[in-house]
Structures are given as structure tokens and as C-alpha cells.
């Protein structure tokens, strides 16, 4: 069974780092639905795997200058604060509610992703708007190297306060559900703050680990992290995330978005069903 966990975690790691998620989205449903693991321990194992994915892929993205480090740190103020709030709330919430929140969040994300895809039919290299004034002050505007276009692309950052608020919510959800909230982060950066999808994904990856650590510490001390589960998950995900980061460079933004939507819907349905049966 350990080997099975490693394999699935590897797959989760690959998918996770390509999509800018922590892999928790895939690991938790797998552990709870197919292996019948109690959700508390699934969350504990997942939150650790989330740190692993984040760190694994982040190293590569940062080195390739895809990550907006200043934006990440700025938004982490919101996510970590949210995470502390979420960790406190989690002690009072029944697991059935967690499944439903999970399902709803996933569906909402799929919808938002699809909407954004409709908006940017012109392609990823379009720069619209003038950038938010906070972004100017905080030096958030930047550029990234585009593999397909073969040159650096400049971008501006919009809607900073809204993005900040989304990140706070993402932090709460991260602590509550044991996920990195990568999808909500990518969503906020992609739809609200108008960043190129690859930058959103890379920056999200960088942030996920920090957000996860903000609640992982609490789960560790609570005893919700079981070595027998957490170890194979961590190992599998680490391997997968290195592989995924390597592949991401070569893929087109539009394709990444399409995969994202399909994955989200599938898993949303599964979690909803699970919530009904608990």
C-alpha cells in the first residue's frame, strides 16, 4: 500500500506543479475516497506534501525568473494570516462540511478559470490596463521569459486590494482543507490581478509552501500528521513536482488552463459525493 501511495503522490506532484497547485487537491480525495483514510490524517499528510511540491517546483521557477517574489511575499501577509484563522476554525468544524466546502471551492474555481479563458482569446501576450497604483508603489510590476514567444514579456499588476482579500480567504481554506489553495491563488492572480498564467502559476507555487507551513506547524503539534501516510506522500510528491516543473516550461498557457478546468470539475464531483456519504 505504501508503494501505491507513492505512485499516486508522484502523479499528484506532476499535475500539481504544472497547474500551480500543491497536489493536495488530488492526494486528499485519493486518500479518503479510495483508501478510506480519516480526513484529519489525509489533511495532515497533504499539508506536508503541499510544502514539498511548492519547494520542489518553486526552486526551478524562481531560477528561471518566472516567479514574482515581491508579489509573493506581499500576498503571503494575507495568506498566512488567513491560515492562522483557518487553523483555529478547523477545530470546530465537522468533516462533512469540509467535503462540501471542498466541492464548492473546486467548482467555483473551474468556472472562473473558464471565464478567464473566454476573455483572453487573443493570447497571453496582451497587456491591458495601467496597473494598480499600489502595485507601482510596491514594485510589483515585472516581466517574464516566454518560451514560445522567445522573448521577455512585460506585465502590469491590477486590483491589488481585491487580490489581497482573495489571498486571505485562500489562507483560511488552506488551513481548513489541508490544501495549498494554489488554485485560488492562481485564480486571484489570473482573473483579478491580470497576471500571465505562467507567472500566476509559478508565483502560486512559491506561495503555497509558506501558506501550508502556517498551518502545518499546528497540525504537526496536534498529532494529525501520521508518518506511515505522510512519508510516502512526501516522497512521491517531491519526485513528481521536479518532473512537472520541467514540463511546464514547454506548455502553452491556454492548454494549461484547459487541463486545470477538467481536473477541477472531476474532483469537485468526487468530493461532493464523499460529503454525502459521510
Amino acid at each position, binding site marked *: 500500500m*505504501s508503494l501505491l501511495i507513492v505512485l499516486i503522490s508522484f502523479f499528484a506532484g506532476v499535475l500539481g506543479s504544472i497547474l500551480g497547485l500543491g497536489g493536495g487537491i488530488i492526494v486528499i480525495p485519493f486518500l479518503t475516497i479510495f483508501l478510506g483514510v480519516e480526513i484529519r490524517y489525509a489533511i495532515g499528510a497533504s499539508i*506536508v506534501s503541499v*510544502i*514539498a511540491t*511548492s*519547494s*520542489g517546483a*518553486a*526552486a*526551478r521557477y*524562481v*531560477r528561471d*525568473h518566472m*516567479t514574482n*517574489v*515581491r508579489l509573493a*511575499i*506581499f500576498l*503571503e*501577509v494575507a495568506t*498566512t*494570516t488567513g*491560515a*492562522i484563522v483557518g*487553523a*483555529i476554525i478547523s*477545530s470546530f468544524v465537522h468533516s462533512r462540511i469540509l467535503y462540501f466546502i471542498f466541492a464548492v471551492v473546486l467548482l467555483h474555481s473551474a468556472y472562473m478559470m473558464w471565464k478567464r479563458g473566454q476573455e483572453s482569446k487573443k493570447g497571453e501576450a496582451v497587456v491591458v490596463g495601467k496597473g494598480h497604483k499600489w502595485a507601482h508603489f*510596491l514594485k510589483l510590476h515585472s516581466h517574464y521569459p516566454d518560451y514560445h514567444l522567445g522573448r521577455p514579456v512585460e506585465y502590469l499588476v491590477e486590483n491589488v486590494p481585491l487580490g489581497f482579500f482573495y489571498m486571505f480567504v485562500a489562507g483560511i481554506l488552506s488551513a481548513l482543507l489541508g490544501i495549498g489553495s494554489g488554485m485560488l491563488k492562481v485564480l486571484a492572480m489570473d482573473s483579478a490581478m491580470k497576471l500571465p498564467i505562467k507567472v500566476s502559476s509559478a508565483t502560486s507555487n512559491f506561495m503555497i*509552501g*509558506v501558506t*501550508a*507551513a*502556517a*498551518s*502545518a*506547524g*499546528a*497540525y*504537526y*503539534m*496536534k498529532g494529525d*500528521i501520521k*508518518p*506511515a501516510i*505522510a*512519508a*510516502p506522500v*512526501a*516522497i512521491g510528491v*517531491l519526485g513528481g513536482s521536479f518532473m512537472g516543473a520541467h514540463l511546464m516550461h514547454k506548455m502553452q498557457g491556454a492548454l494549461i488552463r484547459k487541463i486545470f478546468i477538467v481536473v477541477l470539475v472531476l474532483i469537485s464531483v468526487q468530493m461532493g459525493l464523499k460529503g454525502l456519504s459521510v
Partner: protein
Amino acid sequence: MKENSELEKTELLIAQILRWGIFLCAIVILIGWATGADKIIMAGLLMLIFLPIGRVLAALLLFFKQGDYIYVGLSAYVLIILITSLLMGKQL
């Protein structure tokens, strides 16, 4: 332009720290898993939890070197929250 290359050097350093950190954690967890020693696994997992703390600390120090005090402050806040979480876990 100078500021751009400063940021790029910062990025490369952070990337290095991340890679070495994960490598270490992975080795420890792997050893613990292979030998069935739960205590070693837990130590490795704790190291993994500390990695993002190291990441933010590295960013803070580098921002300090650049004289970017707004970001020193922001990083410091994040660091405090991370440490609070660890301490808080004991009460929950």
C-alpha cells in the same frame, strides 16, 4: 536596470536554498521510511515544515541588504505568523 539584476541574484540564491533544503529533507524522510523509524520520519517532516520559514528568512535578509525596508517589514510579518502557528499548535 541595476535593481533588476539585484533581484535576479536574489532569486538565484533563494532557488539554491530551496533545492538544498528539499534534498536534505528528502534524504532524512527516505532513511526514516526505509528503516521504519518513525522518529526519523517525523524529524524529516518537521524539517520540511521549517523550509518555508528558511525561505522567507532568506528573502528578508536579502531585502535588508538591498535596503528595501518595506519588504523587510512584510517578510518579518510573515515570519512572525509562521512561528506563531508552530507555538499555537501546542494549545489546539
